């Protein structure tokens, strides 16, 4: 945390009072706050502005499956502010993943504009996008996507290896810290296939967080987990959001998890529900 960080202890605190945290850029009336998720929030003053972290304007995406055209996104507008903990909720095929992929620069829209930290990502080269993903974003996938021949610590270290300015010691410290954050400090040398589904997802979360990204995108992070584990994972994400002030954007179709998120965006047939 920088010097410009202050602690705000939750206790009947009204989140919309924090400019730039919630409320701004909401396109859905279903935005809500999660109560009792975190006891302590560290909010970076620098992020307490109206400047969105992610901004989408009239984003459209159509997939062609043979003769059939599927409109995955139909002119979506969205603003995500720094520090938000947002769930994209919708049925299978509603466009959640497409939306997250476009935000994460791993897919491109047919039209519209996507900005990250005020800069359009559409004109970036592949190398620039790779750099952006590595430095500013973290990804968590439904099926964990761990590299099976790497240990837990090596999997977590993967994105750091691209950051040449870090020494091996610094990398090790960051990995240890990330493992501690997700409660896996005793599993450093374990192989992914020896872990439970929940533990694997924690490794994936640690890998997403280890670079201290501005945004973590999680596409159905709980879909492959049992209900109890899914709740623990969402709790973990919420805690990390609160403790590290990382912006989380994740998709889910599990309504039971809605009570734990601060902002919910519902999507259906490629458009946000109003």
């Amino acid at each position, binding site marked *: 945390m920088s010097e410009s960080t202050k602690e705000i202890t939750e206790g009947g605190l009204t989140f919309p009072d924090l400019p730039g945290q919630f409320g701004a850029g909401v396109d859905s009336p279903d935005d809500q706050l999660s109560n009792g998720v975190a006891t302590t929030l560290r909010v970076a003053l620098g992020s307490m502005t109206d400047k969105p972290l992610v901004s989408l304007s009239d984003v459209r995406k159509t997939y062609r499956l043979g003769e059939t055209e599927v409109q995955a996104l139909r002119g979506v507008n969205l603003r995500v502010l720094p520090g938000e903990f947002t769930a994209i909720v919708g049925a299978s095929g509603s466009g959640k993943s497409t939306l997250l992929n476009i935000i994460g620069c*791993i897919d491109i829209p047919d039209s519209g504009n996507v900005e990250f930290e005020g800069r359009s990502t559409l004109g970036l080269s592949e190398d620039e996008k790779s750099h952006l993903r*590595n430095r500013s974003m973290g990804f968590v996938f439904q099926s964990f*996507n761990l*590299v099976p*021949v*790497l240990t837990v610590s090596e999997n977590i270290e993967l994105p750091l*290896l691209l950051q040449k300015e870090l020494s091996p010691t610094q990398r090790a410290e960051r990995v240890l810290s990330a493992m501690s954050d997700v409660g896996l400090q005793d599993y450093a040398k374990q192989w992914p296939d020896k872990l439970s589904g929940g533990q694997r997802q924690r490794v994936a979360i640690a890998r997403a967080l280890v670079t201290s990204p501005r945004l973590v995108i999680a596409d159905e992070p709980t879909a492959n987990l049992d209900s109890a584990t899914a709740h623990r994972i969402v709790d973990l994400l919420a805690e990390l959001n609160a403790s590290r002030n990382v912006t989380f954007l994740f998709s889910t179709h599990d309504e039971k998890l809605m009570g734990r998120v601060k902002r919910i965006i519902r999507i259906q047939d490629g458009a946000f529900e109003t």
Partner: protein
Amino acid sequence: MRDSTQRWSFALRNLIRHARRNLISGAAIAFGFTGLALMGAYLVRTDAYLAVVSVYLNQAGHVSIYKKDGLQKYLTYPGKYTLSPQDQLRLGHLLREFPEVEFTAGFLIGQGLLSTGCRDVPFLAKGIDDKKGLRIREHSLVKKWTPGLIAPPYDKSLGIYPNIGDGISITGQISQMMGKPKIWDDAPKAVSPVVTDCSDKAAKAKLAETADVQMVAKAFNGDFSAADAFIVAHHSTGLAFSEETSIFTNLSHLQKLFQTQDITYLAVFLKPDTSTSAFLDRFKQKLDAEVGGYDVYPFYNEKISPFYAGVMEFLTTMASFFFVLVLTTIIITIVSFLTVGFMERRREMGTLRSIGYTPRMIAGDFFRESTLLILLSTIGGTLICSLVVVIVNSLQIQFSPPGIANTMPFMLTLTPKLCFSVAALVGAIGLSSAWLKLRKLTGEPIVDLLRG
């Protein structure tokens, strides 16, 4: 892990992780390698065998020097197309400037009739200095590549009979045709009786008990000439077409028969591992510039060694055909297995790209795996090859290919150069296929890769 060692360690782990599939891929590459290497091993063996036969046993030398047009005309006009003592001196002086020359030997070739008094056989005699003849037959390459052709009863060189100036060596076939199985050691100094009735079996038997014959020829000056000779050895030329006429004798003995001081050609023997063609180019250049009036031929020239040239051309053509077939199979196999392997790991590629790895980085990591797989496979292939070679060579399989006198051992010779060449070829094909596939695959949209 981005450090080099860690990268290779990662690649090795991935290989082990997909052990079963990689074992099948590796086996396919290894057996393909084995096929190519064994084909090469047979070619190497055959080439070495026939080259030694041509260069040493048939005394062509690595390079032979004739009077201009001498090769075509020395039998028709032997007196005109030979190398005089002055020619020999001149050439000897020139050759001293080439350190790659091991030694030289002058040969006189002449034709005539070999006679027992009852049976005549036309001969094509080659006269050689005793010591040079011994040196040629005892050359390390002769012992290495054609041990069967100098083994008893062919191990008796003229050179070990220094006191028998009129000694000759004939082939086993001539010995049979003339009914003269004995050599000097069996019947030293024994002289054949005068036989008046050649149909008399007892007379024939007496002729067979001695090793003396008569040589009759037209001398280079046109006179009729004859000389007595003792069979002191049997030899084989290694080639069927020359087995009926080949005779070796002392150079001085043959020069006396043909009443000349000349030789037909000068054979130049190069030190082992010297490139004949490289020497030839340099030598011809110097010869033409400084002397002129001579023709120079390498041993692989079809006029000098028609059998060598013909067989090697045929074998090379045939081997090239099978080489292409095997190579195509290997390419398809390698590409298929690598492609399947890569396709199975699309999601991993997608994950790596999503966390910031560029297509080139990912391709590099996967490429290392392919490199290890191909490297280990070629090492395995080399071991399989070596085993096959040891087994085949220990079986001592003999066969009689057309054109070869007697039998020839079916042997394979695996050389480090051959293994390296085949490995380089297989490696180049495998790695270029892998790289092209990886570049294409890792460059696909990340969302597609993540779908697996």
